[in-house]
């Protein structure tokens, strides 16, 4: 079966779990689409900020990554995100 678009895949990935750390999400996307490297990991993070700002996913847990000087989030699907996925045939 043809692969779904990446943002849809990310939503489906999060929907199957009760929360996923962003580096796990990035690793799954890079593996699924055969796109390793920091560029695609960054691209997944940008997509996650879009989804978070739009309220489709929520942050369940945060930790500060002092090594990367960045915030790391564990994201879960919101009710709104679930509804939007249903609207667009992603569930």
């Amino acid at each position, binding site marked *: 079966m043809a692969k779904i*678009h990446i943002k849809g895949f990310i939503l489906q990935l999060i929907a199957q779990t009760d929360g996923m750390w962003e580096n796990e999400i990035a690793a799954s996307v890079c593996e699924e689409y055969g796109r390793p490297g920091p560029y695609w990991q960054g691209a997944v993070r940008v997509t996650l900020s879009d989804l978070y*700002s739009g309220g489709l996913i929520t942050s369940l847990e945060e930790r500060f990554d002092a090594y990367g000087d960045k915030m790391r989030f564990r994201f879960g699907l919101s009710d709104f995100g679930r509804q*939007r996925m249903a609207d667009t045939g992603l569930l």
Partner: protein
Amino acid sequence: MTTAMQAKAAFRARSIRWGFIWALWCAVLWGAWYVPGAAIWQEQPFVAMNMDDPRQFLTAAAVITTLNAFSVLLFLFLWLIVLEKFRDFGRTVVQLRRISKWYFAAAIFGGPMAIFGSFLAMGYVGAVFAAIAGLLYPIVGATIARLWYNEKITMRAALGILVIIGGGVAIYAPGILGELSSASASQSSWIGYLGGAMAALGWGVEGALAGRALDVTDPDCGITVRFTAEVIYWLCLVMPALALFGDIDVIHLLLDALNFKAITLLLLAGITFGFCYVSWYKSFPLIGVGRGQAIAALYGAFAVVFLAAFTLQFPAWNFVVGLALVVGGAFLMYTEKSDVLEVVRAL
């Protein structure tokens, strides 16, 4: 405050800042588009046409808009190839029934409806009226986004939108009274007013429709789907209709436009309009359709600046008043506390 809390606040502020940066880029590029967008009318074959005849003017407008959409799509394809997202575009466009239908609908409103409406307003009332009518679109976009998917339009954001629009009106105000009084003498001026309403409604509705599809799709792929749809509409519906039912030979007009100077201007128009749209669509998920559209409406000020830089015709004093208002309106929105904006929807 703990380090984690500070880092979370910084992350939030960064997302919002990027949303505003993208919307501001949209305004800059939209303003820059007016230079090739205005210059193309002075090139063959358009310069030889009689623009006082509404049929010739509207046919030329349709041909220019078709070629502009083509040029935009060319640059968007290039953009996707550079970003390595072309395959993801393919995966997005095929989901016609569930997802890309929203982009196809957005293209009707933002393309033929808004752009053609804008040309009608220009042709039957005047360019100043068309500019002001176009600037009203964030009111439509913000209202639909608020009612349809509960976007947070705070009092402060609403005030910012109104101040920016007021600034836009101040920039173009001096010409409007003359245009309105001369239009009132003409029996066909209602077509121009209808065109003005089509422009404001078209761009406003486009943003709201696109905002819905952008929830679940990548903005770079989404905007390319939207322009693919627009090219299909112009090339497969509007151009054949004009060729069959119009009294001007559009096929020759299209072919005659493929000269060096016109192609150069069309490529410049494509690159500015294309990336203006990329920035517009990237800002929506981060700061919402209402704010993204309002900041993008600063294009009214940038258009005057770019046209002044290229034509050396400098604006009058009212431009400074308008500029102060649009910048003030933008600051009003930008300085809104980031905890209000953390999530752009009231869920």
